[in-house]
């Protein structure tokens, strides 16, 4: 990290017109583990990678339910994330008390952004060191927002924040056109695959990743441990499909698959696997047993 004469105070500008403290705060977000969010026309999905301090400790929670229609994934300073989570929950519940309806997502995100901006313009405060992915549904449809310590916020079709999020973003950029019409299962699978790209070592297990979904008739539900296992298993079965492009998944052998192994018209894979093979494999899995129905935690 470089040292600067203009980075001691959040209220000091640099000659280039930058606020270094705010930028350093955004670095803190990049130190957090990866969180991915994506939305379709009916659902929003968050997928996050959890870290644990040591083999003995539990994994740090990254996804928080704010209200039945809204939830967040955090990347960065967990303490700041919890504080913002408490503020958001309070706002939602107060809104519900007065208006007996769910708080519009964009308005709450703007309030968070305004709160974050205040911390960049007071000499006795410091910026929040956490970025949020806010997933929610309101009268205008499904939303995915990303906030950052600078007080900026944007709405996204799909986004990833945290460590090595660029790899996840690359995956999302490649596939985002398929998201609007995707089913919930497909969306979750895309999210997990995006998350996988940001793994430096090891692989996704039910202990180190958590998924959350919210949709039109689906309250915000957190899937962890056993609940997320079927999706991870499905992901693993996809991989041999992608790699070899011919062998039928073993799990689907239990039920009678409509697609016969070898009948899948697929070219021998180059990098990344052909989309046609993937879609055919997914169809096979769905018509077979497919992942378990969603259970709330």
């Amino acid at each position, binding site marked *: 990290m470089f040292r600067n004469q203009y980075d001691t105070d959040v209220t000091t500008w640099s000659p280039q017109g930058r606020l270094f403290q705010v930028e350093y705060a955004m670095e803190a977000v990049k130190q957090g583990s990866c969180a991915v969010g994506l939305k379709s026309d009916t659902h929003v999905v968050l997928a996050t990678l959890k870290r644990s301090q040591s083999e003995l400790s539990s994994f740090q929670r990254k996804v928080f339910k704010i209200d039945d229609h809204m939830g967040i994934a955090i990347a960065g300073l967990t303490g700041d994330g919890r504080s913002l989570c408490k503020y958001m929950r309070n706002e939602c519940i107060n809104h519900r*008390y*007065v*208006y*007996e*309806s*769910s708080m*519009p997502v*964009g*308005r709450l995100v*703007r309030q968070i952004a305004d709160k974050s901006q205040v911390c960049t313009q007071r000499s006795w405060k410091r910026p929040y060191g956490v970025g949020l992915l806010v997933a929610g549904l*309101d*009268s*205008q449809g499904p939303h995915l927002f990303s906030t950052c310590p600078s007080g900026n916020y944007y709405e996204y079709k799909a986004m990833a924040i945290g460590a090595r999020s660029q790899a996840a973003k690359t995956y999302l950029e490649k596939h985002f056109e398929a998201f609007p019409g995707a089913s919930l299962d497909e969306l979750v699978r895309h999210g997990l695959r995006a998350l996988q790209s940001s793994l430096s070592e090891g692989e996704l297990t039910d202990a180190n990743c958590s998924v959350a979904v919210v949709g*039109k008739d689906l309250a915000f539900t957190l899937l962890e441990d056993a609940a997320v296992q079927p999706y991870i298993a499905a992901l693993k079965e996809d991989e041999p499909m992608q790699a070899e492009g011919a062998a039928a998944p073993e799990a689907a052998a239990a039920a009678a698959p409509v697609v016969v192994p070898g009948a899948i018209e697929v070219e021998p894979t180059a990098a990344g696997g052909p989309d046609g093979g993937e879609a055919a494999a997914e169809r096979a899995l769905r018509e077979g047993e497919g992942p378990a129905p969603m259970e709330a935690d």
Partner: protein
Amino acid sequence: MLPRPTSHSKALGPGVAGPELAVATSAVLDRPPQPGAHLPLSGAAPCAVDPAALGDPRQHTKYPYVTGTSVLAIKYKDGVLVGCDTLGAYGSTKRYKNTQRIVRVNSKCVVAAGGEISDFQYISNLLDELTTDDYRTDDGIELTPAEVYAYLCRVMYNRRNKFDPLWNSLVVAGVGPGSNGEGGSAFVGMVGMIGTHYTDSHVTTGFANQLARPLFRERQRDDMSEEEALQLMYDALKVCYYRDKCSINKFQIAKVTGEGGVSISEPFALDMRWDYKMFAQPTKWAVGAW
């Protein structure tokens, strides 16, 4: 000169410091009522203390002054209709004959009120602030009638808890998605001055509770056509005018529909007949009457 203690108590008046009686002890407040206790023995009027006035100097609403009478609202096929007259009565005097008791909140919702007109103006102000906030936020989201209704319930109930009610019977009506985002459904609800509230297919306040409600129960259906609904509203307004002494033959009807938004009609009069035989000679056929 020693500074003389002054009292700001209403019981004593300005610039006067009373004796120890100025302090409201139980000896003063709880003593049995004595005739002529307010008249001092030696005529020192400024030093007389009225214990009753030693309480909270704030005033609370005790009774309304300029009032509106009934409000009626019904659902029909395309949306909702709200009707009321345009009178602001000052006790028995029909003083303000041009008050608008129905107010547009946004493109999907109206609120109408009976009771104290000044309190209703205050409530309109509050709703205006909410609507302006929505406009300023500029995200395409408007308050739905159900949200306006829930908000007003909280306002009325909180004021009642302070023993300072807004002396109104409010009717909230409009079309909007349900809170779960269902497609355009009509909404009609009433909030009273003590926070009592309910929603239904038809709602009335004041005298219309007794006069118009039977008509609504018999004839109102959620799928009525607009002509049927208007005819029902006219009949109900007529009955209210015939039988309510503090009403005038000048009405306004507001219509809220999914496509058309809000439209509040110009004031109009209805045909009334006062030559019914029983009105003219009420006791003609009554046995033993004179």
